[in-house]
């Protein structure tokens, strides 16, 4: 026990894990940014589809959203990486699978953010746009979307943080992001305590500033 305590101050693991953290975080961030970027595109499409008057379009969007929200992302990643590639004979590398998994997963949640954002805009805005002769697409583009997007920023920021943390489960598909690398480090060094503390800090160093920035934006936007 006493040995453990001194180890906290003298452990070589602080320094030794650093290169792994730097390398792993890079991949973590790449997967998160790319995944959430495509997730935003998916989410915008399906979010607007949820507002469609067409029952078919609405239905498709609803099925996608509920399937994704109703299953764990771990299962989704396993399904994509192992089941889909096996069944269709497509071989994704772990990075592609990870990005697709984040995109599909975040897309479903973002779709609900988009729907909520657009629905929160007063109906009179659409009517005013239409009354000056804009088409519904133009009204969406110039009037509804810019206002709705502003309201979507805080929940989108939250989703970004959630997705960032979600990438840690890609350790199961051997995607060399930071959690995976740290697990490997622990299995070779046999010493879990300090490396896993460092892993926590690796995430916090991104998520805490992200939350602070987000709160600032929120205050500035006054939403």
């Amino acid at each position, binding site marked *: 026990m006493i040995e453990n305590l001194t180890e906290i101050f003298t452990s070589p693991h602080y320094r030794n894990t650093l290169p792994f953290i730097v390398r792993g975080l890079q991949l973590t961030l790449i997967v998160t940014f790319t995944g959430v970027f495509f997730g935003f595109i998916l989410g915008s499409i399906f979010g607007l589809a949820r507002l469609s008057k067409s029952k078919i379009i609405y239905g498709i969007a609803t099925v996608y959203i509920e399937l994704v929200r109703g299953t764990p992302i771990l299962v989704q990643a396993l399904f994509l990486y192992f089941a889909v590639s096996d069944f269709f004979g497509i071989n994704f590398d772990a990075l592609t699978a990870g990005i697709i998994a984040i995109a599909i997963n975040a897309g479903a949640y973002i779709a609900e953010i988009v729907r909520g954002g657009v629905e929160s805009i007063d109906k*009179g*805005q659409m*009517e005013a746009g239409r*009354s*000056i002769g804009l088409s519904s697409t133009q009204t969406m583009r*110039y009037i509804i979307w810019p206002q709705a997007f502003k309201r979507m920023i805080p929940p989108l920021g939250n989703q970004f943080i959630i997705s960032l943390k979600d990438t840690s489960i890609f350790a199961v598909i051997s995607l060399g992001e930071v959690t995976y690398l740290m697990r490997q480090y622990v299995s070779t060094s046999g010493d879990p305590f300090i490396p896993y503390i460092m892993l926590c800090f690796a995430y916090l160093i991104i998520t805490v500033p992200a939350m602070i920035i987000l709160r600032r934006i929120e205050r500035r936007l006054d939403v």
Partner: protein
Amino acid sequence: MIKVTDLHKSFGKVEVLKGIDAEIKEKEVVCVIGPSGSGKSTFLRCINLLEEITAGDIVIDGESLTDPKIDINKLRSQVGMVFQHFNLFPHMTVLKNVTLGPLKVKDLSNEEAEKLSLDLLGKVGLSDKAHVYPGSLSGGQKQRVAIARALAMSPKVMLFDEPTSALDPELVGDVLEAMKDLAKEGMTMVVVTHEMGFAREMGDRVLFMDEGVVMEEGPPENIFDNPQHPRTQEFLSKIL
């Protein structure tokens, strides 16, 4: 200019308009009065198809609104609408609110659209507010911007849906002034209003609506001073 024949409108099972016939001539100012729930606003909203017509027909300048081939956007660009709650675009400056239609629907150049819009803002007395956001305007100013925005499309007819009902009493005057100027210039106007003073002074004709039909219509003198229908008498006795 506008001919309404046997117009019916239902929301689900509730029939709000139960057969309206009306005609609005060019340069005419028609005021629509009546108790709330009488269908006045719905009637107005049907004229630019913000509400789908259940049955009957509206013909504007020879074009039937129930014709499936009608270009709704083109029609709407020719029918200006002013809403009770202004519905300005809060994320755009006053000037951008007004230029949006000319830019995107009439395909004017930036300079043309701005010149037109600044002229119109001058006309409603708000030249100095061109570059502020609607959030910093009073209700009366907002409504005048909304009028300028509708005018920017050079509409053939202007529809006003209770344009002063959401305003503080001391701000009503400016908006009514802007509307009077418009009427004097010969704009065809349909005004749903509770401002009986305006209806009496500016209206060429007054329609009294109740329970989804036009109960009585005529020149303001007749309607206000000598109403025939008992419902009109009852309504006017309550508000005058």
